[in-house]
């Protein structure tokens, strides 16, 4: 079964790749090509690339990268996960990245402003906020408005980071002003405060609730669709192996990538 599914993936990836290459042949022909056409005419990929991806993509990209390596023997994908703005800083300071997957369009725009991306970024996933509560739900939260009840310890992201910006948008849409006990710098820190039982509720992404398993309970709320976070992916301009970079992006945006991402709770843009 496993082998069969890999064959399907290989064919899919090859197909998407061929389409991608045909679509932007002019762009890639100038770059130093590392692949050679096989007897069947399918390009053979080789070499190694480094993918810089937002921390929230950790489990999905780990799976996508190992699947990609399995279907393309001889390729090596190195992953580096951190907050999107950290990654932008690292790339602009010269870190050797070939692909950048951001958790928001703002950070991708920063990299584009620095003229460090190749072509236009592709949006490949979306994420919305969800209320996370400890499994026992000690403050009996059932709606967004419940978060504003007196005595409820709510933890959110600070407005400076993408999840905090989304929180502010949702607050406006719901007409509810929260009085959080803490404004964290990352969504992982928010989740940590909920899983440890310190907070009664936290605002995190749907995917974080899913990853946390039974350590937290997720409570969806209607206003969350007012702040949909879009994840773009692009080849880094300084990449030495743009062909492999584009092949990996094709795998992420292709049907295999869509399946892995939707299994993890991401939406489609």
């Amino acid at each position, binding site marked *: 079964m496993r082998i069969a599914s890999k064959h399907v993936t290989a064919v899919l990836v090859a197909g998407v790749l061929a389409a991608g290459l045909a679509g932007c042949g002019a762009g890639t022909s100038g770059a130093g090509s590392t692949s050679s056409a096989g007897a069947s005419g399918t390009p053979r990929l080789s070499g190694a690339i480094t993918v810089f991806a937002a921390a929230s993509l950790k489990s999905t990209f780990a799976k996508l990268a190992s699947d990609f390596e399995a279907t393309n023997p001889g390729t090596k994908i190195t992953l580096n996960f951190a907050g999107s703005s950290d990654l932008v800083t690292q790339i602009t300071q010269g870190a050797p990245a070939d692909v950048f997957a951001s958790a928001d369009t703002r950070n991708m725009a920063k990299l584009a402003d620095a003229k460090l991306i190749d072509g236009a970024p592709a949006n490949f996933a979306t994420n919305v906020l969800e209320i996370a509560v400890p499994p026992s739900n000690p403050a009996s939260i059932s709606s967004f408005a419940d978060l504003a009840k007196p005595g409820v310890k709510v933890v959110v992201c600070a407005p400076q980071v993408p999840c905090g910006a989304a929180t502010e948008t949702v607050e406006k849409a719901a007409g509810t002003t929260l009085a*959080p*006990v803490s*404004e964290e710098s990352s969504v992982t820190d928010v989740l940590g405060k909920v899983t440890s039982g310190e907070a009664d509720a936290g605002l995190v992404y749907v995917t974080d609730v899913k990853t946390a398993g039974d350590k937290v309970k997720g409570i969806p709320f209607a206003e969350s669709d007012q702040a949909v976070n879009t994840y773009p992916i692009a080849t880094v301009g300084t990449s030495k192996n743009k062909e492999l970079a584009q092949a990996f992006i094709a795998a992420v945006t292709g049907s295999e990538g869509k399946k892995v991402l939707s299994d993890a709770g991401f939406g489609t843009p």
Partner: protein
Amino acid sequence: MYRRSGTGYTGIPAWIYAIAAAGALFVLLPLMAMVARVNWSQFIPLVTSESSRTALGLSLRTSAASTAACIVLGVPLALILARSPFPGQRLLRAFVLLPLVLPPVVGGIALLYTFGRQGLLGKSLELAGIQIAFSTSAVVLAQTYVALPFLVVSLEGALRTAGNKYEAVAATLGARPGTVLRRVTIPLVLPGLVSGAVLSFARSLGEFGATLTFAGSLQGVTRTLPLEIYLQRETDADAAVALSLLLVAVAVAVVGLSYRRPRLGVAPEGAVR
């Protein structure tokens, strides 16, 4: 091969100076690189913004409280470790010094499981009406946890270097242990105590990992200057650099003004008389 000064033998080979210079440069260069990045035209508005002032004020207040807690808890610990041999003393010393080498985030997790709402003591504290989670006391707890070893190490070294001859004499003259402590021991090791307290204050000022893990981050309540820098870095690199420089300046001022006597550092075990 060996460098000799006019008055006598220094015992330092010449090449040591070259490596020492490289070592000094290794510490100074990153600071200089940071200073070079400061946006000076915006520096004053950035460091005097409301959030910066609140964070600095909170940092200074919590660090002062933590230093006081370190003195209260650390002086008896140092006395026991330096003066009264007992079984398990080495083990106790190792555990007291542990936060020195522990990543602060580990300290934060440990504190969470102790004083957090679901923690070992947290439930009893909550029943007693004491809420530590997300409060300024949580910041002070985190800072005290990481800074305590600095006071204990400095003071224990000073106590060992000073020896206990004067105390023995005072005791033979009829002074009670309490009087000896107050009138002889403490005045004798006061410089060591002061430098230990200054180090604790400086360490508290820089505390980040344990605070973030254990106390959270809210302006005016738990967001100290290092947490404010970490947050500002997300959107405004200029503000983060300006605040970093401010923190460096405060730390240099505190350490430079009061910690000028390296001879009062830790005495090696062999120096005990």
